[in-house]
């Protein structure tokens, strides 16, 4: 299940780009789920270990992927840690929900990410409530960001 702590959280890793640069593994990039996320969010194709084809930037290294998709891979591959997911745009929201369906993860959000029109299960750690759509989420989470 996806759990979210809204607002400042000192134990969360704030600068996810720096953390990713120092800990990522090649297998994270070539993992089929990561490939899907990279194609969807960055519109880029993983060619092999360490090489990604970006339509704008050309052939790039994993560290040059967007901050959002790097954070998604961190959440998916290090579920025991808590990451600042406000480095992810709304186009990452569906992937955060998918990761939360596959495993228990906790993220830190410092803004109101839009999780879309569909229903979901999100555990808001600040209050202990579980919400199922944005109409339920906004009045609760908005107080903390």
């Amino acid at each position: 299940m996806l759990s979210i702590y809204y607002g400042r959280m000192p134990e969360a890793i704030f600068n996810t780009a720096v953390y990713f640069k120092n800990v990522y593994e090649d297998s994270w990039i070539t993992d089929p789920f990561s490939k899907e996320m990279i194609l969807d969010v960055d519109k880029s194709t993983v060619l092999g270990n360490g090489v990604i084809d970006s339509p704008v930037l050309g052939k790039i290294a994993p560290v040059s992927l967007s901050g959002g998709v790097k954070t998604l891979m961190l959440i998916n591959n290090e579920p025991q840690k808590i990451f600042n997911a406000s480095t992810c745009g709304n186009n990452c929201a569906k992937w955060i929900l998918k990761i939360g369906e596959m495993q228990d993860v906790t993220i830190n959000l410092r803004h109101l990410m839009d999780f879309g029109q569909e229903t979901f299960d999100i555990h808001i750690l600040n209050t202990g409530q579980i919400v199922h759509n944005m109409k339920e989420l906004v009045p609760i989470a908005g107080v903390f960001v």
Partner: protein
Amino acid sequence: MRGTHNVIVQNKRIRYDFDIRRNLTIIQGDSATGKTTLIDMIQEYYENGSMSGIELRSDKECVILSGRKWENDLKVIQDSIVFIDEGNEFVFTDEFAAFIKNTDNYYVIVTREGIPSLPYNIEEIYGIRDSGKYGVLKQVYNEFFHIYQGNRPDQNKFDMIITEDSNSGYQFFKATADERNIICESAGGKSNIFSVAAKAVAAHPKEMILVIADGAAFGAEMEKITRLIADHGCLVLYVPESFEWLILKSGIVEDKEITNILEAPGEYIESQKYFSWERFFTSLLVSKTEKIYLKYMKKVLNPSYLNNKVKSKIFAVLPVDF
């Protein structure tokens, strides 16, 4: 610094072309739109000049600020456009807000998280819209009449008004609301508006609620309140630059200089002197009314503003009627 400054940054693969209009600009938006690429290109040009293979055109120097020594670095940066990428937690500190308040730079900050300590205007929040290799900044919030509403029911009358603070603006709207038997509450500060509005829509789901706030410094709150509006058609937000701007715009103080300033405020407002445009408009109104019956005071409303003729002129500027 004052005025609008155009910035063009390009290399062989990508080109950015945008205007920076005020001292505080926020860039946010979807992932992979090129925010960090823009910052990296400006940094590489700053370090290596044209030898970087990057072309940067601007009438002001563009610099990047990052890291733990931001304060030392900022001491020697003047008359520049300062870009700060996400991942720099210092932008959320009171120390940063206090420091940049007295500098003559413009600041462009990449963040999705609101920064309540910085008075940025809702219209200076941008996302990068890219079409292939061209990136431009597009305003996230840009309603022409400063009115934000969801699927509003087909009725114009409001049952409740929520204002930002208890100063003259609140006193003005409260006096009119009382005449019309409408509830008027002060949120007690911009940071409370979301929670007061959220409670109000929960307690009175069928009543029409109008929130009036100063757009000049409401940037950090805008995302929350607009999300609330999206789910509650009974909630409407009106964000003029400030109450003082509303008075100046109404024309009750006839003055050619005011007219000229309102046409292009950015050309007159020195960022080092006025951290927020709201302060500039207050200062302008106070000075222009100092010796007339409409003498303006921020804390206590001069009763002359409740004169029917004056009041109706101010209300004529509002895009909504109570």
